[in-house]
């Protein structure tokens, strides 16, 4: 089941998606974190962020909207208070990082480099719920390139860049971050959406718009992963509405080297483990001894 994602060797291709798994501890009562391929924690900025005012979430058909606004404890508190818990586990920790300016991205990356217990960085250039940074960085190929290059210049950690689907051409952005030196690309982040309470005529989210996730976005995510895989030569991680092993296997077949599980964790705290076991069953059933013989085998 092991896969190599750039310089990262993972015992299996199932990771948690940032923002859906807290700092790991929240789910440690429900699953054995040691079994995860990698654990990606909630996005970290340089200083603490309060996040958006409530209401922050709303369920929609086969999905949900969220506008959390990247609430987080800040990089210092993360390293001092949250990371020590995760060091007890044999699981690579990838820290999702975020900044309002290119220099904040660089400062967060610097602060996490050479920190024991951090195996990699995921650069979030794709959050749709914050007014500065986030989506603006990921929507412009030039800026996406610049952020990637800046982060790479200050760290030796493997750098994964997480892309937004809220662009005209995700392939163009993917090519830019590859050129900027990204080791890996992960996609997709949420799709910007909204939902209205027709009785009160107000948006259900205080932020008005939010990011759509869940099974509703899976076909679109799969299509985007397929397009990006065909255009870049670095590994691609598939994210978007993966609820079960079948969904995960679809992403692997189109060429994702690994997958991230997000909203499914909310539905079922054991989702990652169920998916992992489901992939193992599939491999056995199909006589596949090495998962790498499955990845990128779509027949067209």
């Amino acid at each position: 089941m092991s896969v190599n994602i750039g310089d990262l060797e993972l015992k299996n291709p199932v990771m948690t998606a940032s923002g859906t798994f807290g700092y790991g501890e929240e789910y440690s009562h429900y699953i054995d974190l040691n079994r995860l391929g990698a654990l990606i924690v909630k996005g970290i900025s340089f200083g603490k962020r309060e996040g958006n005012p409530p209401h922050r979430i709303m369920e929609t058909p086969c999905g949900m909207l969220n506008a959390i606004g990247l609430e987080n404890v800040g990089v210092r508190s993360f390293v001092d208070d949250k990371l020590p818990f995760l060091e007890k586990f044999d699981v690579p920790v990838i820290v999702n990082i975020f900044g309002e300016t290119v220099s904040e991205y660089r400062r967060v990356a610097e602060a996490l480099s050479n920190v024991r217990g951090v195996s990699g960085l995921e650069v979030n250039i794709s959050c749709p719920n914050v007014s500065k940074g986030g989506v603006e960085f990921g929507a412009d190929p030039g800026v996406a390139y610049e952020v990637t290059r800046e982060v790479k210049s200050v760290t030796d950690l493997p750098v994964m860049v997480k892309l937004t689907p809220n662009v005209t051409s995700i392939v163009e952005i993917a090519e830019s971050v590859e050129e900027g030196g990204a080791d890996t690309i992960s996609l997709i982040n949420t799709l910007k959406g909204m939902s209205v309470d027709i009785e009160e005529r107000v948006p259900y989210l205080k932020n008005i718009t939010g990011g759509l996730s869940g099974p509703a976005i899976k076909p679109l995510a799969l299509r985007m992963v397929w397009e990006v895989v065909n255009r870049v030569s670095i590994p691609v991680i598939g994210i978007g509405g993966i609820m079960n092993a079948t969904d995960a296997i679809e992403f692997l077949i189109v060429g994702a080297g690994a997958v991230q599980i997000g909203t499914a964790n909310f539905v079922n705290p054991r989702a990652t483990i169920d998916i992992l076991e489901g992939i193992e069953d599939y491999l056995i059933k199909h006589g596949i001894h090495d998962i790498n013989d499955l990845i990128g085998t779509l027949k067209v």
Partner: protein
Amino acid sequence: MISGRIILNREIAKDHFLISLKLSNHFGSAESPFQGTSPGQFVMLRVKGKEFPLLGRPMSIYSIYPGDNGFIIELLYMVVGKGTYIISRLKPDEEVYILGPLGRGFDIFPDRGCVVLVAGGVGIAPLSFLGEHCRKGAVNRSLKIICYVGARRSDLLVGLDRMGEMCSDIRISTDDGSRGYHGFVTELFQRDIISFSSSDSVVYSCGPSPMMKRLAEVLKDHPVPCQVSVEERMACGVGACLGCTINTKSGYKRVCKDGPVFDIKAIDWE
């Protein structure tokens, strides 16, 4: 997460339901996670095998007791949207997923001689569990439990029988005056507030947000301790997604993990 088999799922007042579930033993563990559940804690109830509703729905525990080979749990809920409507259509013997018990329940003050409960609608559920807990655990046989119960109309008053059994006194209000005091339950409570000693009483409340906001106003300058159970839309229920935050005087707090019970004075009701 465990399976719950529906024993009954009955409409006890318009759009108000009582669901009773037999919980299976926790997979791979001898001890049920529900051992030692405290009043004010909640569960996430999710319909099996559907992608809508995708997420569980948070519901306070109304009662929990050991049945043969597992626990029986009761929940009160109101149909407020499509998700709860779908739950309300489930039949006996159908199964749902239950995640819990979750959150931080009510603090118990065993040295206080008077427990005052202020309930609105299905908000009576966690207070009924709490009242039962206080009654059972009472060191002091003379413990007084006084309950204020409000609803929009008399036919929407739920949980009165059980509450009546454990309370020394039950005081009812309806917004339309069809039973008891004509007006808000918080007004009825306010009328009596002077009779509650701040050193020997404790107030607990659960109900719609506007009701608890009025209660906060009533208790603004009163030193009696008051804890409230609040609700908010949730996704994970375990403190990870940060979706259910409310505004408090010390910043945003997660209803699922830091609550659902908070000190009424800690919440920013604006």
